[in-house]
């Protein structure tokens, strides 16, 4: 696991040449902590969520995980299900959890049938908003910008609507701007497209 974490850190550094993160979470400690806090009950033992509306975390960007855990701990992202799990986490524990989930291989694309018309519409919407600039053309994310492929479609629908409705704010305000004015049908199309890549 340590080797995997090292690999993840190396890849992270390659993707973001400008800032060499000095932090080094320990994926082994993170695995133990994830077990102790029962993260897998919702997010899946291997980080691939089997639970409706719960996000998969496997292969997620470490810095994104880190920022979200801090926002949960600080009460800046109000998700009732995360209040208890995030309570009292130290910075080091958060770094370990981030390293653990970042090092797990991300899940496969959704296996339910792909609706071509819906996916095409989603692809158009994604291109129009330059989603691939920050999230990268393959939607694997970079640094604090999350991986949005290999994610549950229902969670993507849920979280994109939260951004649109200003129920969720990130480290900055970019996603609220990008989602402004999209309809529920648009969101379903984007989520379907991303989940089936």
């Amino acid at each position, binding site marked *: 696991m340590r080797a995997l974490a090292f690999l993840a850190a190396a890849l992270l550094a390659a993707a*973001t*040449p*400008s*800032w*060499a*993160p*000095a*932090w080094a979470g320990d994926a082994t400690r993170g695995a133990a902590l994830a077990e102790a806090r029962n993260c897998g009950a919702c997010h899946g033992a291997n980080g691939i969520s089997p639970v409706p509306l719960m996000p998969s975390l496997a292969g997620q960007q470490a*810095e994104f995980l*880190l*920022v979200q855990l*801090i926002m949960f701990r*600080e*009460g*800046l992202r109000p998700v009732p299900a995360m209040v208890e799990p995030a309570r009292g986490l130290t*910075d*080091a524990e*958060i*770094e370990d959890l981030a390293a653990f989930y970042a090092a797990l291989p991300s899940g496969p694309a959704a296996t339910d049938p792909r609706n071509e018309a819906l996916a095409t519409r989603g692809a*158009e*919407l994604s*291109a*129009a*908003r*330059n989603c691939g*600039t*920050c999230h*990268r053309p393959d939607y694997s994310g*970079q*640094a*604090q*910008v999350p991986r949005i492929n290999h994610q549950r479609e229902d969670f993507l629908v849920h979280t994109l609507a939260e951004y649109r409705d*200003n129920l969720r*704010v990130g*480290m*900055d*305000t*970019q*996603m*609220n*701007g*990008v*989602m*402004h*004015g*999209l*309809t529920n049908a*648009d969101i379903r199309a984007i989520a379907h497209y991303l989940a089936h890549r």
Partner: protein
Amino acid sequence: MNPHIVPALASAALLLAPGLALAQAAPPPAWAQGRSPEMANSTLAPHAGRLTVTPPDQLPTAQLRVPEGFQVELWAHGLPGARVMVRGPNGTVFVGTRGIGRVYAVREEGNERRVSTFMQGLQQPSGLAIRDGALYISAINRMLRVDNVEQNLSNPQPVDLTSAFNLPEAPHHGWTHIAFGPDGRLYVPRGVPCNICDTDGERYALIASFNPDGTDRRIEARGVRNSVGFDFHPRTGQLWFSNHGRDWAGNDNPSDTLHVNLRRGEHHGFPWCASGWQDPAVSGRLCSEFPPPALILGPHVAPIGTHFYTGTAFPERYRNALFIANRGSWNRERLAGYEVVVVREEEGGRLVQEPFLTGFRDDANQRFLGRPAGVLTMPDGSMLVSDEQNGAIFRISYRR
């Protein structure tokens, strides 16, 4: 309060998605508006801030450089996101942040310097000001006041002035720097809710001033895209402010700028003109209609702390000089900024800028070791500089 995106700017998105009926109502993310065709496939994106504690042995203290005769040392650490700093009359240094939502208090207790989280859970509390023992805190769309703040460090009971100030609701560029002017009024800028747009100039792209209770709003400067640092000249009282130029117009245009506001309500050019550069994305007015900036700071350098040195411990040439912390670029292929510069007036009134605190930018490897953000003069004439990336504060002093 949706800004009207300049049609030419939205056209790239429209071309990519013919039949996208909602495109006009749904602007691309603020940082991606106004992108030139050659930058359409750029992967430049804002750098991730670090929100966890950076241990002292990982700080770039040893890499930092100051002019001869000066020393730089670590003053405080363990304040993730440390950005703006103000000092209370009893010596508490308050430190504002953005993403982590905290305001810290740093106190000397005996021989120890202690950092505590004074408030938390705020949306980007990046503006702090002190007056009559009260701390004013601006977060996105909010204004709070904590009376007798240094007597209430463990149990602050803020007075909510949000409705009195009635700040615009759009969150983008809604994090503000605030400061009291020599006229006793609270100066509150409001950036534009976009990268480049023709927006409501009565609400956005301005620096306003208010009575401390939020009444009697007055527009002091117009056409200011996003100022997150300003100060008042120690002798003239004039408002000097730095300003961020827009993104996605290229590596070298426009530059970020320093301005002096000579008349109340003066217009400084946004969205038509930035750093003497006529923005091709917007038509209607010419650069020649606006006063030129006092100084061109450099492309994408991102000036934050903009602070006149009012101490006497530094050599004569630095008295009343303006120190600017350039937090550093993201929308540029090679890094720019990541240093504190000093702007001095030469004989004849010409302004020159020189590097003052350097070493955060590693040119050879195109990486950065920290991001200077806030600047504060201390009573002993030393200077504090915050590093937002590392959550640390450095102290610079002079020894003859």
